């Protein structure tokens, strides 16, 4: 990914900042310029919204053939996470063994190094998720 394209999204990737449609109150992440439910009525009414950093695992996979720039993380866990505020997102799950992850596992956001753009030598950061340890 080219550098400007990455930098533009930094606030969102660092802090789970999405938008809320003021017309129907639905929350979106990543941010959208119009609400897919309200269309015209949402123009100018999509306001920044800081999402809860908690969610549950909707689905997951353990990657053995990595994306470029992720070679030294193999094997790594990718998941689709159902956030408490409604949206689903794609992110890694870290700090655990793959066997510990299940559909329905509770997770929370952690801030980590995402990967590296080999050509430009740029390291970029953003959200990953970790299992919420259950209280005993």
């Amino acid at each position, binding site marked *: 990914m080219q550098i400007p394209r990455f930098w533009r999204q930094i606030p969102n990737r660092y802090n789970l900042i999405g938008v809320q449609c003021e017309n129907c109150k639905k929350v979106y992440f990543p941010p959208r310029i119009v609400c897919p439910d309200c269309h015209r009525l949402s123009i100018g009414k999509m306001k920044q919204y800081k999402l809860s950093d908690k969610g549950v695992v909707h689905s997951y996979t353990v990657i053995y053939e990595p994306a470029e720039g992720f070679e030294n993380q193999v094997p790594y866990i990718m998941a689709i996470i159902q956030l408490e505020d409604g949206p689903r997102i*794609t992110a890694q799950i870290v700090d655990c063994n793959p066997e510990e992850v299940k559909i329905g596992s509770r997770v929370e956001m952690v801030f980590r190094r995402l990967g590296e753009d080999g050509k430009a030598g740029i390291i970029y950061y953003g959200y990953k998720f970790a299992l919420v340890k259950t209280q005993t």
Partner: protein
Amino acid sequence: MRDVAIIGIGMTKFGELWEKSFREIGIEAGLRAIEDAKISGDLLDALYVGNMSAGKLIEQEHVSSLILDYSGYSSKHLPAVRVEAASASGGVALYEAYLAVASGMYDFVMVGGAEKMTDVGDAEANRELCSTADNEWESIFGATYASLFAMLARRHMYEYGTTEEQMAHVAVKNHKFASKNPVAHFKNTLTVEQVLTSSPVATPIKTLDCAPVSDGAAAVVLCPWDHARKFCDTPIKIAGVGLATDTIALHSRRDICTMDAVVRASSKAYHMARIGPKEVNLAEVHDCYTIAEIVEIEDLRLVKKGEGGKATAEGQTDIGGKVVVNPSGGLKGRGQPPGAVGIAQVVEIVQQLRGEAKERQVPGANVGITLNIGGTGATAFVSILKREN
């Protein structure tokens, strides 16, 4: 709107065609389609080309004019249009060409699809496939194309009890068909055991659940149905078409286990063809991964939702079953040149409906359906083809 016929088909071998360039394979498929249609190329009114990533993969854009030029028609100054919709580029090109002929704008149109994947390495080819998902919100976090289908598979297993063994049956069936297809990338047959023990790519997807990346091209010639019998003994009617879209990212879908774009595109096509899923004898679907075939036959309503895996393992999608799926070998066995897939699916169904598929012939083939998807299902193109006696 006029009825539209397919009067000519042609394709190259699919596979690693090191010795051939993009323009060579594009023209080879086109010339075969013209020859098959027994028309003079001078009759052509326009060319549509489906292509995903020539700019990235061979550093050549503007491939519509390029193909027309090297086909020898530059002096006719024909309209030529390139269509891009990821791995559905070929299907969407066909959709556009269909509209042009049905509307009366053109009479004779060539539609081709072509992709040269192996001029770059595997990593780059896979990155190109991955860029058809949401690059900024999926790929950047380390998601690969396979991993997205893997998460779809895991959820499908959770909701419907689909198993890895059922997925393996898709690969086994499609390699069996491919072994009888002279243009197929793969000629080897597989066992369920071999698929299950192949190395993990993104669990539960293993190496032998994945379609290869291939080079290849395919082409068809369309004309108004009323002219078709002048050129062709067995013209095939395009009885219905449907094109639909969905969110670019898998995670944003209403249900990650249902391709709503496939449901919508096929509903339109069935309605237009005035038939239901029960009347379909054979299908060519987009099995980029084995789970994709399972979900797609459900969303085309060829089997009940959630029962795609079970139906496959029971042989319901093999010869002698309810509906024969991917008699060409599919993307898994025949190969996957993204831009060409949608056209190659139509080429196979036309061969089957004409009764020219030799060893792969599906008995009693009268109605066939094709499904070509882009990305993880953000685009879906469906066609229903019919033999009219």
